[in-house]
């Protein structure tokens, strides 16, 4: 029964899996680049990263609309609505993962001291590997209804944080750099973390504003350009 | 002080209860008594008829015509049952009812259809009033009308046709009213369904509404037939009576009520009235029960 609802649910899950595939592909590309110590990204790879990024954004908006439609039109309840709301949150997290990849992609060519970078590569790539593992397991916990994988991921977060912190310390300490350089490195790493967290606060503010525009006029403005609206004109984008 | 008031109250309320209970019982008793009288009246009538008439009911009763006065007198004096029967009356009554039905049923149903389809219009109200008036006209007056219209100009003699016409006029208002009521009870949604299928209007009435109202129409027809079976006065002025079985519509014919009247007037044939009455009443009762059975079947 409820053919239209079942079809809509099915379509959402299909598109969700497609989006997951693209995000995982981005992560794998990034992983390989790090392992290969690549700093200058070859153009075809760059192109693919950009295309995937655009597709991820498309999927986020499109799936968002599909989810809103199914809630408005089909009034799902119980496990249906829980799955849908979870998917809605996961989608925005997936998009953010895509964003992180995009950012790394922008930051890699800016590395000036290749030596320091190559020294840190083992740490970075092991962090990448464990993050990718967590993403894989958490997604499969959703798609396969695997509670154990979900619990593992949650518990693993703290573990990984600890390990990463330790790894960074060890790598810097065990390097041949003089103490004041090591001191500088530690300081910059911490300061940089503070700065990116502050940046993220601004990002969140932007997201809040976009959500509020959606509430008011029903247009989903994520990933598009906004023009200020006067009283007589329509917003163009 | 308080105590005596309470006691007084108790006693007066008690007596009022007793008073009311007694009233109740008296009333019940009165109702049962009068019902009993009424029912026993019916039993008395039927009983008398049966006792007095059972001997006259035999095969010949149904198959032979009424005897002539002479043979009746002979039989009566020798204490035997009167020979012959009322075959001419039975067949005559059936013939009359058939003619009356052929005339009144189609017209009555058509008028009933018109009334139920157009019940808001003023003209419909007028027709309904006329039907009601017609129902109240004394039967002998209707007989006179039939005399003037049929006996004199058309058949030039007393005739079965005139009797049929008179009975038809009497059946008409009943059929019209019962048709209208039955058709009105058919839910509008049925008509809508047929119309939505592209059925032309007259077909909707003929093939959907009337079949759905069939049992109501049938019971209305049976009731009106049972009513006219016992009419005597109009028949006296139209079909007059016939000692033989007559199939000629232009000539006089017999009928059971007419025979009862004739038997009553003839001292030798008086005994036949009981059996004839039993027959008539039995037939009418049968029609009424059938009509009720049809109604009951419809309601389920």
């Amino acid at each position, binding site marked *: *029964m*409820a*053919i*239209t*609802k079942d079809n809509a649910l099915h379509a959402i899950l299909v*598109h969700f899996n497609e989006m997951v595939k693209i995000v995982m592909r981005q992560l794998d590309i990034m992983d390989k680049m790090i392992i290969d110590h690549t700093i200058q990204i070859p153009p075809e790879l760059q192109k693919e990263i950009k295309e995937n990024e655009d597709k991820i954004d*498309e*999927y986020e908006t*499109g799936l968002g609309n*599909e989810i*809103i*439609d199914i809630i*408005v*039109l*089909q*009034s799902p309840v119980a496990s249906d609505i829980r799955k849908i709301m979870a998917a809605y949150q996961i989608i925005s997290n997936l998009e953010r993962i895509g964003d992180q990849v995009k950012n790394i992609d922008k930051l890699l060519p800016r590395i000036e001291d290749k030596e320091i970078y190559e020294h840190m590569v083992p740490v970075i790539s092991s962090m990448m590997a464990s993050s990718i593992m967590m993403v894989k397991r958490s997604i499969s916990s959703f798609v396969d209804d695997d509670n154990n994988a979900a619990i593992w991921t949650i518990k693993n977060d703290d573990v990984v944080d600890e390990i990463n912190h330790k790894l960074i310390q060890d790598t810097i300490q065990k390097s041949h750099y003089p103490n004041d350089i090591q001191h500088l490195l530690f300081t910059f790493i911490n300061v940089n973390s503070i700065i990116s967290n502050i940046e993220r606060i601004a990002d969140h503010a932007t997201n809040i504003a976009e959500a509020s525009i959606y509430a008011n*006029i*029903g247009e989903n403005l994520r990933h598009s350009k906004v023009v200020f609206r006067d009283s007589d004109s329509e917003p163009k984008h | 002080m308080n105590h005596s008031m309470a006691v007084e109250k108790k006693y007066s309320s008690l007596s009022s209860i007793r008073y009311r209970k007694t009233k109740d019982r008296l009333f019940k008793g009165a109702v049962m008594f009068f019902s009993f009288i009424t029912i026993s009246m019916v039993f008395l009538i039927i009983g008398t008829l049966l006792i007095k008439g059972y001997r006259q009911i035999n095969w010949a009763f149904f198959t032979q015509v009424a005897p002539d006065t002479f043979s009746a007198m002979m039989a009566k004096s020798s204490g035997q049952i009167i020979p012959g029967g009322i075959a001419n009356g039975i067949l005559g009554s059936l013939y009359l009812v058939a003619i009356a039905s052929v005339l009144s049923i189609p017209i009555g149903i058509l008028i009933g259809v018109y009334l139920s389809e157009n019940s808001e219009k003023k003209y419909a109200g007028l027709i309904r009033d006329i039907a009601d008036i017609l129902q109240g006209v004394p039967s002998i007056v209707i007989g006179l009308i039939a005399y003037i219209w049929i006996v004199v100009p058309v058949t030039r003699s007393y005739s079965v046709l005139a009797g049929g016409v008179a009975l038809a006029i009497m059946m008409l208002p009943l059929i019209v009213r019962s048709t209208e009521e039955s058709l009105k009870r058919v*839910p509008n*949604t*049925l008509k*809508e*369904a*047929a*119309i*939505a*299928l*592209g*059925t*032309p209007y007259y*077909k*909707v009435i003929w*093939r*959907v509404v009337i*079949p*759905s109202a*069939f049992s109501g129409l049938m019971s209305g027809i049976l009731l009106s037939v049972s009513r006219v079976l016992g009419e005597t006065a109009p028949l006296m002025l139209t079909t007059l009576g016939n000692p033989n079985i007559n199939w000629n519509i232009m000539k006089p014919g017999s009928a059971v009520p007419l025979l009862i009247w004739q038997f009553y007037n003839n001292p030798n044939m008086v005994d036949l009235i009981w059996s004839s009455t039993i027959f008539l009443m039995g037939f009418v009762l049968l029609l009424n029960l059938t009509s009720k059975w049809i109604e009951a079947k419809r309601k389920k």
Partner: protein
Amino acid sequence: MKETEEERIAPPVMLIDNISISYGDDKYAVKNVSAKILGNSITAIMGPSGCGKTTLLRAINRMHELYPNIHTKGKIWLNGNNIYDMPTINLRRKIGMVFQRPNPFPTLSIFDNVIAGYKLNGIHLKKSEREEIVETSLKDVALWDEVKDSLHSKGNFLSGGQQQRLCIARTIAFRPEVILLDEPTSALDPISTAKIEDLLVGLKKNYTIIMVTHNMSQAARISDKSMFMYLGELVEYDNTQKMFTTPSDPRTEAYLTGKFG
């Protein structure tokens, strides 16, 4: 990512052309309604009581002419022909109607009910044709398995939902182009309602469906396009998905959010 609705649905099949319906002198039940109805789709007409939606629906197969003192202005085109120029008998074979209360003919058997349209119109069919039509129609409404052993008995044992499906079978036995439904599930329980909604979604492959409903969730669930009517006027007519998330007219918004109903 999604193809547009217009690409999926066939081109317009019916054009409601400035229809106004009044009874008496100046009481307008429907005022200047125009709309294009796309083929092989479900169009829902919704609105509060008295908004004219039932009158409009009945104007499409001209059953509104049964009401007294009705005056109609405007035209309705079905595949290029003005239905007001067609004889009603032909029109009603192309446009069928299903009503709010199931109304199978009580004196006819289930079999005869399905082909009642042919019988009542005096159209003669060979026995094999009749049986084929009955079987196909009952299968199309998912009733065949439930009644195939009692086709020739009267359907008094059928539930409300089954009776309504029988009425739908009776309508599609004629292979009409358009099926009109006047609140078809408001007299039914939720499970029968869900079954009939699924049935309609399946039927739209072969028919164009226009449905009046007072239940806006039903319109949301199964219709492709929706009309919102208020006080006889067509306030908004758009894709259902758009109308329910971002209605253009504030009256639609008020109705959908329950400010009046």
